[in-house]
Structure formats: structure tokens, C-alpha cells
């Protein structure tokens, strides 16, 4: 039997080894995390790129950028086409162009949702249908989240799909191309609203708003210099609750904080910060290095959180007439 003395290692040696391993992990982990974040950031950028491709196909098919529908009380209706007659919003309108025709067509041919319970049930399935492209992987998983806000033309699903992106509603918060809530929202089509060029120019400087039908010719600052959509800000305390007023409905609803954001002067983009800015009107993202914005020409730009507020506002305005400095991106 060998004496134990002289073999093995002492407690101190063990602790030294553990400490060294600990320090190595401490040095390595941030690098690994940064690499993972870089990959997620790239994936997020790709998602916006695909949303851009789908939007441009929508422009090819219909002659105008996807409309943001009727307002937050409504979800998409496959029997109402595209443009101002369609209650569903931006993301509902691009579904067929991103190979999600099946979700877009849920409930098709079942008639008026006010009288057809079958249709309302199918539209509830639509509200629950998760599309991974509509999520930023740095923020949250592409799964259903608690259902909070209902729609007039659909039943309440048990869980609801979400999106981490939002269409550009211009520089004025919630005064979309359609009439402001509540007048026309309830009374459509008997309301003081027009889709003519002059009316659109006078009342709306974004690209996708209530019942908007903005054509490429309306983007007078140039499609390269105008936001089409981007990442939306969200308070991290509400990533999974579904209760944030700007994230309490599905991606397919009409014009609302959930699916539209604005670039008013004070609404500079911001990185998601716990406890801050619930019901946000601004663009923003979970990425530490800045956010991605999709331009009307389909390109995706990295925008710094430190972007000049004036430049950010002008990028959100399709007819600002102000040149965008080359250093903006």
C-alpha cells in the first residue's frame, strides 16, 4: 500500500487551478458573448432585408408601399385586398410576399367577420401565427406571447404573435395618412379622408400610415434617404409580458404603436433599457452597437444611437427636402 503522502495535490493547488480557470472563463466569456451577439445582429439585419424584399414585391404588384391598415382595433382580413380597403397593417400586407400566404389567407371566403363566427375564429388563428422573420433574435424568441389586446373583427387567441420591427409612420406621432382616431376609424368609408396626392402630402410625411397608399413617386427625398421600417424600441421588462401598450397586439393589426414608429425630433433611437419608456413611439433595439433601419430602396443601414436627431427626423420624412449628410450612416 502506497503512502498517501507525495501523491495527488494539495487543496491550495486545486484552488489555484480553479482560480486560473475562473479568470480564463472571465476573459473568454465576454468574447464569446460578443461573437454570439454579432451573429444575432447579422440575423436581425437579414430579417429586415427580407421584410424589404417583400415590401418591394408589394410595390411591384400594387404600385404603392404596404399600407398600415385601419387602426389598432382591426386585424387583417384576406377578403379585403390591399391598400386602403384593408384593415390589417404593414406586416399583414407583406405576408404573401414573404412566403407566408397561408397565414394571410386564414379565414378567406368566410364572409363578414361581424356576422361570421367561423371567420372570427380563423382570424384569431392569424393573430396567433408566429413568423420568425418578424423577430430580432437579440431580443426574444419567436414564440407566442400573452394575448392582451383584441380586434373587432377577430376572436381573442390564447397566445399572440409579436414583432420586433415597425413601419415608418413619419415625423408626427399617430396622425397617419388616414383620418385620426376615432372619427373615421369607426365610420369608414364615410369620413373626411382622401388618398389623393395633395391630401397625402398635406397630412402625412411617413411611408406607411393609416390607409396610406404611398407610391415610390411620393418618396421625394429618394428611396435611399427615407426609412421604410426599422427595429422598434421595447422596455425589456415587457419583452415577455405582452402588456406594453406598444406591444400588446399581433404584427397583423392596423396602424398602432405595435407596428408603426415615428421620428419626431425628440424621438431619437434608444437601446432597450429596463424600466424605461414603456409604450414607446420611437425606433430602437436590443443591440448595444446601434439599430438597423430598412430604407425604401430595400437596403438596410446600421444607425448609431448617437445619430443627429435632425438627420434621424429627416430620414423618417419622405419629403423633407433636406440633404442627408454622407456621415449619417
Amino acid at each position, binding site marked *: 500500500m502506497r503512502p498517501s503522502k507525495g501523491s495527488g495535490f494539495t487543496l491550495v493547488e486545486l*484552488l489555484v487551478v480553479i482560480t486560473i480557470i475562473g479568470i480564463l472563463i472571465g476573459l473568454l466569456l465576454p468574447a464569446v458573448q460578443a461573437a454570439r451577439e454579432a451573429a444575432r445582429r447579422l440575423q436581425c439585419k437579414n430579417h429586415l432585408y427580407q421584410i424589404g424584399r417583400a415590401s418591394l414585391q408589394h410595390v411591384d404588384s400594387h404600385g404603392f408601399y404596404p399600407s398600415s391598415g385601419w387602426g389598432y382595433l382591426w386585424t387583417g382580413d384576406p377578403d379585403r385586398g390591399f391598400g386602403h380597403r384593408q384593415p390589417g397593417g404593414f406586416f399583414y400586407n407583406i405576408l404573401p410576399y414573404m412566403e407566408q400566404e397561408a397565414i394571410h389567407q386564414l379565414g378567406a371566403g368566410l364572409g363578414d367577420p361581424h356576422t361570421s363566427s367561423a371567420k372570427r375564429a380563423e382570424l384569431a388563428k392569424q393573430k396567433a401565427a408566429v413568423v420568425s422573420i418578424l423577430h430580432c433574435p437579440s431580443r426574444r424568441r419567436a414564440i407566442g406571447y400573452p394575448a392582451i389586446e383584441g380586434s373587432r373583427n377577430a376572436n381573442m387567441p390564447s397566445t399572440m404573435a409579436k414583432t420586433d420591427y415597425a413601419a415608418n409612420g413619419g415625423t408626427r406621432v399617430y396622425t397617419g395618412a388616414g383620418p385620426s382616431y376615432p372619427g373615421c376609424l369607426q365610420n369608414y368609408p364615410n369620413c373626411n379622408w382622401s388618398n389623393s396626392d395633395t391630401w397625402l402630402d398635406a397630412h402625412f410625411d411617413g411611408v406607411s400610415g393609416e390607409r396610406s397608399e404611398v407610391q415610390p413617386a411620393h418618396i421625394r427625398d429618394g428611396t435611399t434617404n427615407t426609412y421604410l421600417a426599422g427595429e422598434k424600441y421595447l422596455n425589456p421588462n415587457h419583452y415577455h409580458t405582452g402588456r406594453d401598450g406598444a406591444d400588446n397586439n399581433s404584427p397583423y393589426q392596423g396602424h398602432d404603436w405595435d407596428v408603426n414608429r415615428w421620428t419626431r425630433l425628440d424621438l431619437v433611437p434608444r437601446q432597450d433599457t429596463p424600466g424605461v419608456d414603456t409604450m414607446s*413611439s420611437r425606433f430602437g433595439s436590443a443591440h448595444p452597437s446601434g439599430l438597423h433601419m430598412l430604407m425604401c430602396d430595400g437596403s438596410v443601414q446600421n444607425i448609431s444611437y448617437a445619430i443627429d436627431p435632425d438627420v434621424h427626423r429627416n430620414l423618417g420624412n419622405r419629403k423633407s427636402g433636406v440633404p442627408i449628410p454622407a456621415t449619417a450612416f
Partner: protein
Amino acid sequence: MRLLSLHFLLIVSILFAAGCSRRPRAPRRPGVNAAAAGRAAIEMYDTDGDGKLDTTELERCPALLMALPLADTDGDGKLSADEIAARVEAWFAFGTIMMDAAPLVTLDGQPLEGAEVVFEPEEFLGEGFTECRGVTDASGQARVSGSDATYPGVYVGAYRVRISKVVDGQETLPARYNTESELGVEVAEDHGTELLDHLEFHLRSQ
């Protein structure tokens, strides 16, 4: 001794690895004693001495009047000290500490430029809250914020709103909008988007 320092190193390195998240830290929640705030509010505004604040009494505290429908849990149309205390607790229970505020100020129907808008924490809340201020631009809109540049915005809470426009050392707005302000706002998540993006003060010069 050496063992101790080794342990220390180990713990520090693990903490370093675990704490290396790059998400910004949450702002600090304002310190407030909810029960004391409830009692103070009753003391300040309960003129008829029934221990509760009805709508007439609440006219002197517009922020609480705004809170009434959400804070009146027993449905008697009045606020008790307990209901106010519960409401103060509820502000922070929603997961929001700060919100954006860009109120619109008009004078006789026209956007008012160059007016200073001050959100002054209601006295009954004690000392824990921060005063926020902003100046209206040409469109009449003011970006109201505290002085901490890291966290622009307004802390959830109850505020007295004072709006003044001083020209050549003279206050041009009536006292009911500044020194004797009748304006107020409750900043809380459950008021919905209507609150902070559509917060409007329509002043009249007469």
C-alpha cells in the same frame, strides 16, 4: 489568509464573467414611503374631514383626480389614504420607472413657443422624486425631462404642472397655470399611449 484571497479572486472572476451583460442598467426607482404619502395627501386635501378625497377636493390635486378611476378600488368615487398608498405602489409594479413626455402647449388655440413646462412632484410624495422641465418649440411641444442625461424622461408619479413664459422679466401667462397652478398629471403606465404622446395643455390668456 492565502486561501481567503484565492477564494476572493475566484468569486470576483465569476462575477465579472456573469455581470458582463451589455444591456444598459435600469434607472434607480424614486424613494417613496407609500403609506406616508397616502396619509400626507389626506392631510393636505381633505377639507371636509371625512378621511377621504372626493372629486371636489381632488380638484386641488389634478394628478390624483386623474388617478381616481384607476385608484378607486372600492368604487365609492373617493380616494382613501390606503387607496392612494396602493396606487403609489402600483406605479412601480408595472415594470416601468420612466416614460417619455412631450406635452403640447397652446395659448388661445395657437401653439405656444418658448414656454417653460415644469413637472413638479406633488408635495405629498416627499423628497424622493425629481423635478422635470422642458421648453416648448415652435410647434408648441416641450420635451420634459429631469437633469440626468443618461435617463432622459419623466419618472412615473404624480406631478403638478407649471407653465410659464417670461418676456422681459414679466410673466405673460395667468397665475392659474404657474404659481397657483391648476394643472397636473399622473404619469403611469396604465394610462396608455394617450397620456404621454397626446398630453395637451390648452391655455387661455383670459
